[in-house]
Each structure stands twice: as structure tokens, then as C-alpha cells.
């Protein structure tokens, strides 16, 4: 297994719009802004349909939580308010869910406590950026 690396972080608002996207490695190709928005919308729709096709009808299923692909893993964390945090990592990353919980904490501390932030709008916050850099960016010698 390769060294676990976080490729990128997406934040989707409750309508499925992309409000934040950050890449931490150059191992996956970059996407242009239009593609990013389309993919975020697709993910939002698929996430909702996933709970409809659950084979168990006695209790409600959540949406998609983890997608395993050939060259990456995609972890989704849905908050109570409908905001989605999506982390794209190397396959078999051992702590992607825990990282997302930490990202949510930082988001609450920096973005939500900023009186100038408008909810559901794109996030531009330097404190948030530097805090994320601190623990999501892989060390230089590893990339």
C-alpha cells in the first residue's frame, strides 16, 4: 500500500453547490471550474438516491459514505444541516472519516464563527485555509 495521502477536499452546500474546493496533491489531474461544479452536483444527486435503493426497509439508510475506486477513495460526511464534506484520498486511507470530523471542527471554528460569512455561499477564509494546510497537506518529502 502506498503512503496515505489526501488528494482534495470538497465542501457542498445543502443544495449541492460547490462552496469550497482545495487540492493537496498533484497526483490526480486538475478539473476546470465547470467540471468541478458538475461533479459536485452529480455527487449530490447520487448521494440522495443511494438511500432510496437500500435493501432494508425497517430503518432508513443514510446516503453514500465511502466509495472505493481503483486509484482513489471518496469519503462523504453529511452534517445535520445538510452540508457535505467530501475527501478524496489514496485507496484504503485508514483515517479519512476521522480527518473529516476534524475538518468539520475547524470549519465550525473558523468559517461559521466568522460574522462576514454568508451561509451557503463560497468560502473565502484564510484562517480556514491555513488550518487545513496544517494537517491535510502531505509533507514535502512524501510527494
Amino acid at each position, binding site marked *: 500500500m502506498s503512503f496515505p495521502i489526501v488528494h482534495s477536499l470538497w465542501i457542498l452546500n445543502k443544495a449541492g453547490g460547490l462552496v469550497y474546493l482545495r487540492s493537496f496533491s498533484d497526483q*490526480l*489531474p486538475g*478539473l476546470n471550474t465547470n*467540471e468541478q461544479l458538475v*461533479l459536485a452536483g*452529480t*455527487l449530490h*444527486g*447520487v448521494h440522495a*438516491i*443511494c*438511500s*432510496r*435503493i*437500500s*435493501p*432494508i*426497509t*425497517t*430503518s432508513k*439508510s*443514510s*446516503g*453514500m*459514505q*465511502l*466509495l*472505493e*475506486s*481503483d*486509484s*482513489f477513495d*471518496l469519503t462523504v460526511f453529511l452534517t445535520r444541516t445538510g452540508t457535505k464534506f467530501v475527501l*478524496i484520498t489514496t485507496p484504503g486511507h485508514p483515517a479519512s472519516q476521522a480527518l473529516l470530523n476534524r475538518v468539520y471542527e475547524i470549519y465550525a471554528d473558523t468559517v461559521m464563527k466568522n460574522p462576514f460569512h454568508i451561509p451557503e455561499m463560497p468560502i473565502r477564509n484564510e484562517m480556514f485555509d491555513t488550518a487545513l494546510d496544517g494537517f491535510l497537506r502531505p509533507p514535502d518529502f512524501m510527494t
Partner: protein
Amino acid sequence: MVVHSFYIFNKSCQCIHSQRWQHYQQPAKDLSEEEEQKLIFGVVFSLRGLVRKIAGNDDEHFQTFKTSQYKLHIHETASNLKFILITDRDSPNLTKYLELIYAGPYNSAVVRNPLVNMTDERVTNENLRKGVEYIVKSIK
């Protein structure tokens, strides 16, 4: 480990074979079997496009995804057939078993069967059903 259902979709988005295992009594679903198959195909199709874009590679495939209730495993063949297995969420990656179903029961009961119309018909072949049953039972 619990296996809930198994589906084969052909390249024209039709479900050509499905099997279900009912493990305990539960209320009926609010959507028909046919609608459910359409939704499953839709999810798999959209995710396929998504992973190709993210990886920037047209040969990228995803193997599984999971929610709080179930896990879906998929194996896609070169001829665009999709073999899909739905299990409980804690099972390991079972795509190897789907490959086995393709190479074993599907190959011998459908591909090598001159009576099967490969264009768009549902496969109603007892041997395929039994073969799938056998492989699913062997999953530990």
C-alpha cells in the same frame, strides 16, 4: 455476512437477471422492482462517470460503495456487462466473487448456450440461478 441481492445489467441498461434473498420479514418497499433496478443502474452509471472524471482516466472503475445500511459491489466486464451484488455494510470487497460468477455460471449457462438470445432478453436460465446461488453461499 448477509447478501441481499444480485443483478446483471447488459450494455443497453436493462436488467437481464436478478436474484434476491429475504432473510427476515420486513415491510414491502415503496418502489417496484423495476423502478429499483432503474435507480441502481442510474447510481452505478453516474458514479462511473464521476470516478472517470476525478481520476482523469477512461479505464477507471469503482468497486464498491457503502451507506449506513448496505454495501454495493460491482464488476464490469469488457463487454459492458455489469455484475452487482448488494450485501450488508461490513462485508469486505467481494468483486472477486462477481468475477467468479462471470467466469463460471454466466459463461457456461449463458454465453455458451446457443438457445440464449443475447440481444435484450431477460435470462431465465435455471443453471445460472443455481450457479449464482452456489457461489454466493460459498462467500464466508
